[in-house]
């Protein structure tokens, strides 16, 4: 019997091996936003080592890959400088019978709040997922959108006046039934912010015909008006679509105003390498990313000067 007990105990110990939390110690991004964006996409897609390590990310799918991606993103946010907050969660499977077989989803979202320059509870959420499909470097899906958020955050941070808080969120597990954003929406309900709108970004790095066209998905009327107006001033074609398969869905389902922003996904000018090993750094159109960064910045700048909640 002693042998049996020893066997069971050793199996239990092996099953509970602890994991270490990675840290990126020295990450200095270039001053130029567009150069920094290139570096962010390069590191996240494994084109470059993670700073201060010899590690290259082959994907951002496994627990370890996602932990390293978060460590790197934390170091990126410290550069702005903003203090990132981790939101670890567990989430049930979509089918209760699967609950019987395996454990719940476990993941961690990362977010920061760029505070308004005067006290207010109003807040705009800008989000992009950082995970990828298995064995996919995810340069376009979705390191490009992470880089866009970094650019927008840097630009907004340099504004003298901000009437609204802006929350930047990097979602985990979008590739697995939007679990990260669903968990984040639950967390958001417990916070004291008055969420004016949520903008989520997915695949912002493909523009084969260089027309700079982009799509907005299921926008509320006021968000649609904002994007159409700013796109017109930039002379950029915009298409409104009804695509519902990414993180903005979680916000809309919870009753928030939301919109998704992406490349020409429905129009057909979209990366053919989605969720494959070929979604690499070299396929990202950085001119397009720069254009959309400026455009999104203008939309958000307009919003934080004339918040949507005041327009209702």
């Amino acid at each position, binding site marked *: *019997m002693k042998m*049996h*007990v020893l066997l*069971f105990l050793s*199996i239990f110990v*092996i*099953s509970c*091996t602890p994991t270490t939390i990675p840290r990126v110690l020295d990450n200095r991004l270039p001053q130029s936003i567009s150069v920094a964006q290139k570096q962010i996409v390069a590191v996240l897609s494994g084109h470059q080592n993670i700073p201060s390590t010899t590690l290259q990310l082959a994907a951002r*799918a*496994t*627990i370890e890959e996602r932990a390293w991606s978060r460590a790197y993103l934390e170091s990126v946010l410290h550069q702005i400088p903003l203090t990132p907050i981790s939101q670890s969660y*567990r*989430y*049930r*499977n979509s089918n*209760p*019978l699967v*609950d*019987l*077989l*395996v*454990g*719940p*989803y476990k993941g961690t979202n990362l977010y920061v709040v760029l505070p308004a320059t005067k006290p207010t509870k109003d807040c705009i959420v800008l989000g992009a997922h950082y*995970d990828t*499909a*298995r064995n996919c470097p995810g340069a376009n899906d979705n390191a490009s959108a992470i880089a866009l958020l970094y650019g927008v955050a840097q630009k907004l941070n340099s504004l003298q006046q901000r009437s609204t808080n802006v929350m930047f969120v990097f979602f985990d*597990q979008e*590739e*697995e039934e939007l*679990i990260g954003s669903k968990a984040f929406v639950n967390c958001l309900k417990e916070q004291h912010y008055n969420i004016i709108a949520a903008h989520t970004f997915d695949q912002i790095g493909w523009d084969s015909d260089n027309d700079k066209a982009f799509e907005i998905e299921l926008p509320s009327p006021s968000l649609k008006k904002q994007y159409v107006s700013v796109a017109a001033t930039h002379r950029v074609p915009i298409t409104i679509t009804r695509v519902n398969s990414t993180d903005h869905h979680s916000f809309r389902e919870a009753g928030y105003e939301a919109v998704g922003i992406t490349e020409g996904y429905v129009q057909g000018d979209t990366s053919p390498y989605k969720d494959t090993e070929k979604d690499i750094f070299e396929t990202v159109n950085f001119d397009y990313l720069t254009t959309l960064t400026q455009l999104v910045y203008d939309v958000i700048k307009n919003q934080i000067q004339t918040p949507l909640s005041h327009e209702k």
Partner: protein
Amino acid sequence: MKNKSVFYFLILTISVFAFVVKGLVYASLGSFIPLILATGVFALFVIFRTKPKVLSRILFWWAIGMILWSLIRFLIGGINNFVKPLTENHLHEQLGIQGTIISLLFFVIGILLLRKKNRWHALSFYYEKLQSS
């Protein structure tokens, strides 16, 4: 015989409580089916604790359940690793090396609980104790 019987009840307790804990975790996440199932099985053991034949039947079906649970996990893990990788990274993580060890553990528990000789030794020991107290 005493040691074997104690071991039998030890692994039975581990198997039931593992599912009760799983049920509690899921209940805290708003999913109640695992908890209903685990507490249901636990309740059956308590209700029929004085009826050896019924208790033996419950033990039999609980052991079959353990074996099926492990085999389904082995099957999904095997397909994922050797036939076609699952798109769900979550399942891939859960049915990796650690998940396979857990499946193996519960498969062995299921086999030990299922063996008729083990069951009757343990039940005889239990009823002897019950009567002497």
